[in-house]
């Protein structure tokens, strides 16, 4: 294709970056179709979610961040003054590193080893009575933690540290992917609803009402019960049911933008509805989207953990909820199995809440942080 041809095409869809995105999205769609109908397994389902979200993030997060470096720097200065937010950010980075590189240094989290079951964490000792078949008596044996299993093992001898690291990966994946889907969907529905107004608005908002009337967690349990637990599916379901709050907030924000001069100017210049929505409205609610996304991640992570906790998690992956479930069933012998995943869950949720609050204050022009 000639240079001119590319330019012409790019002009049609509103710039070279949009053309690139459309090409990437088409490629993604074709791979997915090929995966379903021609060959088996190019990527697993979660892989597709990653790539799709990556494309959207490239267009609406990475690109604006890059072009708006000065603004980003300004906001970073404001966020930096909030020590808790920085602390939260540091913890999230630590968690990401743990989830990515941790599995390289720890044993298989699913490998049972009954020789080394019920080992307490380093620095703790427990007493276990063991039946001796020769003498027919119980002997009390003191077991202390070893550095081989820094956090101890559960009643099947699985390494708790390895399980926690595996769980960190699951929680982060679910948190980021499901929130990504939910926020993208909520933004789209909110903006379209507010911009088009009238009948569309009415129908979309009534549908939002219906979805909001279901208690979020019970709906989740219901759907996973019907369709079966699978991590990619759980992510998808949380994403497809968790958009309602975002839609409402984005809608009310867009309603006030809709009548502003720059939108009227864009309309007067002949911009299409699609262009106004994607190029003018969405970029103007980005700061709100970022805050909503950060503050929804904790709820999503907790929802997945709660699902695994009641036994509706993906049995193929070790998640914090599942470890907690195992821990609850053996509270009287191995208390540490129940304590560890909860502490991680708690700090993760706390970290995202801190960062979200910090971002909200930083984006709020009225606050002087």
């Amino acid at each position, binding site marked *: 294709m000639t240079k001119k041809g590319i330019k012409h095409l790019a002009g049609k869809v509103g710039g070279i970056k949009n053309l690139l995105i459309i090409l990437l999205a088409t490629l993604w769609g074709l791979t997915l179709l090929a995966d379903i109908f021609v060959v088996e397994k190019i990527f697993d389902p979660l892989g597709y979610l990653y790539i799709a979200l990556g494309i959207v993030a490239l267009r609406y997060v990475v690109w604006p961040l890059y072009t708006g470096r000065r603004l980003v720097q300004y906001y970073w200065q404001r966020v930096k003054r909030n020590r808790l937010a920085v602390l939260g950010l540091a913890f999230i980075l630590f968690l990401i590193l743990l989830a990515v590189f941790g599995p390289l240094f720890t044993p298989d989290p699913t490998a049972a080893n009954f020789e080394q079951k019920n080992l307490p964490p380093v620095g703790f000792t427990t007493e276990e009575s063991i039946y001796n078949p020769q003498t027919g008596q119980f002997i009390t044996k003191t077991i202390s933690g070893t550095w081989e299993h820094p956090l101890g093992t559960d009643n099947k001898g699985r390494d708790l540290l390895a399980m926690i690291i595996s769980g960190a990966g699951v929680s982060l994946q679910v948190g980021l992917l499901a929130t990504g889907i939910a926020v993208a969907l909520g933004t789209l529905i909110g903006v379209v609803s507010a911009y088009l107004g009238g009948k569309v608005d009415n129908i979309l908002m*009534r*549908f939002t*009402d*219906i*979805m*909001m*009337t*279901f*208690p*979020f*967690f*019970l*709906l989740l*349990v*219901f*759907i996973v*019960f*019907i*369709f*079966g637990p699978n991590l990619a599916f759980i992510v998808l379901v949380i994403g497809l049911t968790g958009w309602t709050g975002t839609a409402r907030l984005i809608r009310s924000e867009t309603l006030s933008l809709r009548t502003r001069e720059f939108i009227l100017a864009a309309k007067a210049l002949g911009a299409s509805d699609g262009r106004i929505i994607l190029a003018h409205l969405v970029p103007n609610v980005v700061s709100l989207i970022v805050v909503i996304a950060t503050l929804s991640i*904790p709820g999503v992570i*907790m929802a997945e*953990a*709660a699902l695994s*906790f*009641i*036994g*509706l998690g993906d049995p193929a992956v070790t998640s914090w909820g599942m470890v*907690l479930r195992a*821990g*609850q069933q053996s*509270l*009287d012998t191995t*208390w540490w199995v*129940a*304590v560890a*995943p*909860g502490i991680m*869950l*708690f700090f993760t*949720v*706390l970290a995202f*809440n*801190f960062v979200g609050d910090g971002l909200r204050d930083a984006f709020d022009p009225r606050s002087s942080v």
Partner: protein
Amino acid sequence: MGKTWLRDYIIKRLFYAVIIAWGILTVTFILVRIGPTSPADKYLTNLAARGEEPAQVIAAIEARYGLDKPIHEQYINYIGNLMRGDWGWSFSTSMPVIELIKTHWIYSFQLILLSTILAALAGILIGIYSAVRQYSKTDYIATFFSFIGISIPNFWLGVMLILLFAVQLGLFKTYYDTGIPLLSLANLKQLILPVITLSTGMMAGYTRYTRSAMLDNLRKEFVRTARAKGLPERVVIGKHVFRNAILPLVTIIMFDLGSIVFGGAYLTEIIFGIPGLGRISFNAIFADDYAVVVAVTLISAFLILLINLTTDIAYAYLDPRIRYD
């Protein structure tokens, strides 16, 4: 004029509520239908597991559930049956679902009621105190703990409470005893841990809402006026500020009931073995007892619909500033 306006508003809200109720029924119907296994399959597996002749029961089940009929007829029957109070048969407990729910709802109700009252009272009081003494030591401590309360996963908190107070200290039983009469001190005692589990998150949330709502109103002009008039601080806070801050709070509490409390109660009941609606749904999931799971989901959704409707109407009635078109 005022009265007709209110009447029109109520009629409109009722109309919306009917649409939403229909939406809830339709969404659940679609979900169950497009699921990979039909309710009959799960029912069948269970009957076959009990040693009954599968071929014999197929016809019976299909006739019972009308699964041989075209999809639109099934849909109409489904809604019709639910309206008539026929919520299906729970085979894992061998009784009609509606009977099952009638015997178990009270356990969920007592848990949710006690937790909500405790959370609202404590949250509002701490929030007011925190706002009135902004930037004091108490305020910092309250803010700190409310952050912790919001971030702590309530099911983990429940497990930790059991570990500490039941397993280690032996102060409580690890399991809920249904033999104890509901209206007794012993029942109240065994509800202590579950209520703490369920109410901590809510309480933290209400503390934060109350604090920020109070602070918003404390800065307003009418507060300065009230103080300038020489009213005692108690009256300014209690009558002027609190009254204005409380209304949005009621909506938030009502909204929380749907979004957080029902899910939280579900988990709390599972952890403590309280035989409420959450627990029977949980048991039904592992017995593949479709009808119960559907019923509990539907009931919670309808309850929330009812709560929202009541809140909206009460709001319109109570707050003279609110006018909808």
